[in-house]
């Protein structure tokens, strides 16, 4: 039995006690998988596993609070589940976690760029094959092969948790992380190299095309205010409805601040953005600061308390008495 078949069997066993199990299935074309809510055995048969499972299903858990649900996770997704547990946003008794080893997911923006460079359109993709090392996309009559390592999500190139950090059912043998622990963040390095005015110009350029749709917010598993977000509340009226780059950047900063020390760098905010705006860098920047100050990484230990959700009289790395 293949790993995927075994996973399906285990889900079918658990399904009678659950409202649903969240996973992925094939989407409208071969480049798109889409979240799957399994409620019947026939649904489970649609389950997919592989590099096109780009979505983080943890985003749905807080909205299903009170119901007992199952969730299939990649390593990165499991960190979001753990972070939600740490913050008491979901109840451990109400969630059943299924995991398998993950070898990375694609970044569709990179695939699109590769295809465009070859004169093919991702919108015309008619077939995709993968062998774990290469992704071959057939579009408009031509087939373009690309190494998975070059078109996978940036987070996969730095991933330290390819196996779920927490799982009730784990299928397959855990694999070792493929990347060194301190792999560099190219996006942060590029921003670091800019002067402050250059950085501001960078963000203005990108925020100019933001449509204020809030896909970045709603795809984020840790953005739980959602319907009551200050970006849209009128009382208080924190943000105007103007579509200026300043106002839109203000929202991104609010988002990033609310995620400081909570963001697991799943990258959903950036992946979800229809305008391809690199909003993840803001969160990564804050995470780096949190890591330097508190030696903390979000969503790894279910028992840990995120640093900004607790108070310690003496912080190890903040020498306020000796400064």
């Amino acid at each position, binding site marked *: 039995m293949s790993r995927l078949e075994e996973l399906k069997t285990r889900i079918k066993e658990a399904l009678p006690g659950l409202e*649903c199990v969240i996973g992925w299935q094939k989407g*409208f074309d071969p480049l798109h*998988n889409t979240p799957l809510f399994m409620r019947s055995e026939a649904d489970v048969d649609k389950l997919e596993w592989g590099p096109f499972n780009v979505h983080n299903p943890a985003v749905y858990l807080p909205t299903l609070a009170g119901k007992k649900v199952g969730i299939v996770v990649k390593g990165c997704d499991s960190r979001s589940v753990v972070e939600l547990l740490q913050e008491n946003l979901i109840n451990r008794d109400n969630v059943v976690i299924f995991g398998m080893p993950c070898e990375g997911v694609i970044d569709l923006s990179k695939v699109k760029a590769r295809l465009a460079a070859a004169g093919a359109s991702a919108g015309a993709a008619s077939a995709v094959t993968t062998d774990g090392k290469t992704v071959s996309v057939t579009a408009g009559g031509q087939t373009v092969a690309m190494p998975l390592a070059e078109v996978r999500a940036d987070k996969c190139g730095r991933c330290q948790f390819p196996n779920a950090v927490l799982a009730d059912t784990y299928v397959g043998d855990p694999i070792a992380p493929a990347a060194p622990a301190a792999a560099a963040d190219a996006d942060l390095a590029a921003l670091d190299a800019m002067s402050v005015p250059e950085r501001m110009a960078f963000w203005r350029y*990108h925020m*100019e095309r933001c449509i204020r749709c*809030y896909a970045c917010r*709603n795809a984020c598993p840790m953005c739980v205010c*959602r319907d009551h977000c200050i970006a849209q509340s009128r009382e208080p009226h924190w943000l105007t409805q*103007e579509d200026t780059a300043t106002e839109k950047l203000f929202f991104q900063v609010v988002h990033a601040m609310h995620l400081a020390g909570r963001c697991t760098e799943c990258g959903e905010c950036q992946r979800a953005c229809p*305008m391809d705006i690199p909003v993840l860098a803001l969160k990564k920047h804050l995470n780096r600061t949190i890591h330097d100050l508190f030696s903390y990484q979000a969503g790894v230990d279910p028992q840990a308390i995120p640093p900004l959700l607790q108070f310690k009289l003496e912080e190890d790395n903040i020498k306020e008495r000796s400064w």
Partner: protein
Amino acid sequence: MAAVKYIASEKLPDWLKSLAEKSRVLVPVAEGGGVVFRPYAPGCQPVFGSDATAPPKGSVFPACQELFRYERGKDAEDPGKGTLKLLPATEAEPTVVFGAKPCGARGFLIFDRVYMGKKFPDPYYINAREATVFVTMACSTANVENTCFCHWVGSGPADGAGSDVLLTPVAGGYTAEALTDKGAALLESPVLSDGAAKAAEADSVKAAAREALGEAPDISTSPAALLAAFDDMDFWRDQSDKCVSCGACTYLCPTCYCFTITDEPTGQSGRRMRSWDACMHFQFTLEASGHNPRPTKAHRLKNRVGHKFSYYPTLHEGIIACCGCGRCIKSCPVSVDIREIVQNAVARAKG
């Protein structure tokens, strides 16, 4: 109809430049990983291949528009009395939208019935609509994407409805056909030459693109089918399970026209703004009492699909409020597919 004209690719910048001397010309340009409409300036590199990420909706219906400004003051004669001065919004700028796909322009036909009707004519919309001319580009087979379904909703890759000029890519350049008087005026430029010799090629480009879309399923029963599913919340739960309730689908939609109004005060003066609303957001029908008739994403997705494929056609001679551009499918972070939902509703009604 006016004779077919032709413009060589290398002459296009000259034409754009001359158009830009008289009005704002919005062209699709690449910004980061997206393609958006921006004012043309010499040197700018328009992207005429694949459809723009965001449609040219903002050309006539800006994402955020000032309705008026106000200033509060004191009456000099009677200090106990306040005064209020209203300052009207500025007039719309003459604009040419150049190089959108036909579906992007056709979207405004859906708007027109709402904002240019007899009952509630909207001066802001009418003002901008009349100041705008659409030069669209028919799709070739290279532009037909998996998400395109204009042929399902009574349109097609060379649909000129809503366009003033229709360009068609042919070898070396484009043919140009005027579809309205406003469009004919734009074709008077000397950089365009006679295109009669290219007309047959243009026709075959259009026919091939239509062919590439394949057969359209019959969704003519969608108005009744969606209405029949109105109270079936299990159906809507299933359709909306994966939706994350963002507004990407509505903001990117060339036919979504809902707006909200907010006052943006700074001290004693301020502005009343109208901005895009999205039925996928919780605040969409949130009442002052706190009651929300569309409290869940299932109710909200029902509204979006129902509005386009049932309520609007019922009110407007069967016209579907969707131009089939596929943006809501392509750009949805979780690939919710409106075609699938409509077909599921049609299948549900058949039992």
